[in-house]
């Protein structure tokens, strides 16, 4: 019998609504200009009110912060700016008391070059176990088929270390040497790290950059069978010692490629669906459903205990790695006329600016996010339609302080503005005076209230998290229509991707006799008969219908 997590249902992640947030950006309780765990604790009531059921925290470990915390220098501690381990334990306890699960990052592919392991490795003799914590080479010509990911900043995957007098391998920044997963001691250490956080009560991990764990000559060094074996070892360890915990894979691959990360239900529980996110943006811009239906048709079935993680925007750039060149060019033209918004192979913008601050488009995309098969993830600030700042370097423009109210520093901190870790958004459209939590909570027709009601509605119906998906094919391709089914529950979702009103005729022959009831207002629509079912949708309009049988 393992230690049980806070959730009682082993598949809790299937019904979850995840909220992704950065501790440093949420709320500052000690006036140092950086958010911290005590601040986060103060805002737990807000998150509970919003209705999210799971909090995914970006890295909060000690780090030189050259890659926003993804360069970890100590796996079993908290960055001093964010608080202490006690604060974290208290946060986990209070989140659980509010029936929210906590998911943290497990950055396993690489460490910071400041990590004690790396410092030890570079002075250890070549071939010794300590040295072998990382991947070393005498020359920089090994693994030539592995692509460079951060094209804008790195020229090679190898960097010369003057102390070790050897090249070390890194798939990301040169200050992030990759760990050597061929060394059993490395796996051992990582399992110990997992136990450390699981014992505190963490309910799951997002496994960062896992396609790149193992390197082999003659391959792209991505998605290797040896990598999947490491994941199985991690999962076996998790299942033997703990209950109701979850592993979420970050593998930016086509859906068929990601499928391997689920194994036979014996590797990761969840994985992000990256291509869907891109296709949603293409679909709404083209006002055409095919990019969306095509990618979903290419999406393979998952083992019963597995689930897709869906998102619109996250802390990274809107990645365009997994789309065709034509699609990428289209996305650049459509969504980043301003070249400053481009980064690597992607667009570093938040949801609201991408949607031109059009409330209807934001709602439409969110409604698709909440009704597609998978667990939705909401990026902090997107529930109020926060903006970004493309003038800030790297991806910092989408990691600005949460906008709580119209006071100084957006109510995020009482420190002096210049001591904030990042300036708050202050432009006239998305600035904190215009977009903030306090004003939206008072305004009952705000995006915040809409989001809260939609999250509440989604939580009432497990069909969204667990049901099957079946696309309808109406002649009007500007309309996306699909059925979600689970046992007796049938939900019909119809979305107009166009900026103009659209008529649609749906073939619902098999559901004749059912009455569609619009879910949010609980309004019954005319009964379905054998003929085509006619609907008219307003600009960017969408409906969720609960199909009720007449016999009921």
């Amino acid at each position: 019998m393992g230690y049980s997590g806070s959730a009682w249902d082993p598949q809790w992640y299937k019904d979850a609504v995840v909220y992704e947030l950065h501790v440093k950006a949420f709320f500052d309780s000690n006036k140092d200009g950086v958010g911290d765990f005590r601040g986060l604790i103060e805002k737990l009531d807000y998150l509970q009110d919003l209705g999210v059921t799971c909090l995914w925290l970006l890295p909060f470990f000690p780090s030189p912060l050259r890659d926003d915390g993804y360069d970890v220098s100590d796996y079993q501690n908290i960055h001093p700016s964010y608080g202490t381990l006690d604060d974290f334990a208290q946060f986990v306890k209070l989140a659980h008391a509010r029936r929210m699960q906590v998911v943290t990052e497990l950055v396993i592919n690489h460490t910071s070059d400041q990590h004690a392991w790396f410092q030890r490795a570079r002075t250890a003799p070549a071939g010794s176990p300590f040295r072998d914590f990382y991947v070393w080479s005498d020359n920089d010509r090994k693994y030539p088929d592995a692509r460079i990911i951060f094209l804008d900043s790195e020229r090679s995957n190898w960097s010369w270390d003057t102390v070790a007098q050897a090249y070390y391998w890194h798939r990301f920044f040169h200050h992030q040497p990759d760990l050597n997963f061929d060394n059993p001691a490395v796996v051992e250490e990582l399992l110990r790290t997992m136990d450390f956080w699981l014992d505190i009560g963490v309910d799951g991990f997002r496994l960062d950059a896992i396609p790149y764990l193992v390197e082999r000559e003659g391959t792209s060094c991505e998605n290797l069978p040896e990598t999947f074996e490491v994941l199985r070892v991690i999962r076996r360890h998790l299942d033997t010692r703990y209950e109701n915990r979850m592993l979420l894979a970050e593998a930016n691959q086509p859906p068929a490629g990601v499928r391997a990360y689920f194994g036979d239900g014996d590797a990761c529980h969840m994985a992000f669906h990256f291509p869907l996110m891109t296709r949603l943006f293409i679909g709404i811009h083209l006002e055409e459903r095919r990019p969306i239906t095509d990618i979903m048709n290419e999406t393979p079935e998952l083992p019963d205990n597995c689930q897709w993680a869906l998102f619109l925007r996250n802390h990274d750039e809107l990645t365009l790695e997994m789309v065709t060149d034509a699609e990428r060019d289209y996305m650049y033209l459509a969504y980043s006329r301003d070249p400053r918004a481009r980064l690597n192979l992607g667009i570093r913008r938040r949801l609201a600016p991408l949607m031109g601050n059009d409330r209807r488009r934001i709602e439409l995309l969110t409604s698709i996010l909440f009704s597609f098969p998978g667990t939705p993830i909401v990026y902090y600030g997107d529930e109020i339609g926060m903006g970004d700042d493309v003038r800030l370097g790297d991806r910092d423009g989408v990691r600005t302080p949460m906008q709580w109210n119209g006071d100084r520093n957006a109510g995020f901190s009482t420190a002096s503005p210049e001591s904030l870790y990042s300036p708050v958004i202050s432009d006239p459209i998305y600035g904190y005076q215009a977009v903030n939590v306090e004003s939206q909570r008072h305004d009952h027709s705000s995006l915040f209230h809409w989001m809260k009601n939609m999250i509440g509605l989604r939580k009432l119906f497990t069909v969204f998290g667990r049901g099957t998906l079946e696309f309808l094919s109406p002649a009007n391709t500007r309309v996306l229509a699909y059925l979600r089914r689970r046992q007796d529950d049938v939900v019909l979702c119809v979305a107009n991707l166009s900026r103009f009103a659209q008529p649609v005729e749906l073939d619902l022959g098999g559901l004749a006799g059912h009455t569609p009831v619009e879910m949010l207002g609980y309004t019954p629509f005319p009964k379905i008969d054998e003929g085509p079912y006619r609907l008219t949708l307003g600009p960017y309009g969408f409906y969720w219908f609960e199909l009720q049988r007449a016999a009921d």
Partner: protein
Amino acid sequence: MWNQIIGIMDRAARQSAERIAHFLPGVLVLIVLLAAAVLCSIIVRAALLRVLRGLNFDRHATHSGFSVLTEWTPAISPSLLLARAAQWTVLVLGLLMGLSALDATIPTALALSVFNYLPNVLGAVVIAVLGDLCARLFARTVLIHAVNMHIRSARLLGTAVRWLVLILTGAMVLDHLGIGGRILILAFGLLFGGIMLAAALAVGLGSQDAVRRSWESRAQAPARDRDTLDHI
């Protein structure tokens, strides 16, 4: 003469040294007390925060009509506000104790009197806030209960309770600040009595019907009063 000069200088030096020696321990005590106060205040704040969060105070405070706190400081949670108030009180108390240690050495009557007065101000603020909270809460509770007891002047009663608490609070605040003295007590007594009388009249007039029925039902036998109805 040289000897005299030497003697005077010696005396002066000795006197200064004595004064300094007399004064220094006070400063040392002040510093120690201040340090202790800082430490205590941090502990008090942390402990209070933990307790309040453990009790889920913020949630209760927002949901129990205690909206004043959040109205005043929307950016700061009520528990943090209380914790901060406690922290500052401890700090100021520490400072006062330190100054009283200095008291023997330097006469800074004005500064001392100001500092002596500070806790009164702090206490008064706390009393005022709590009083306002209680007044709102009690007024509505009394109103609902009075209506449910079929008292006709329930609203008057609710208002009376509210003002009673507010006036009591006001009197306590002024008393705490040392303003008004005996006049205040007298005035408060008069007001208090007046409101009590009004409330008594309100209850009496409002519930005369209830009282009459109660007597009637006692006189009648067997009792088949509505109060004996099984509602569940």
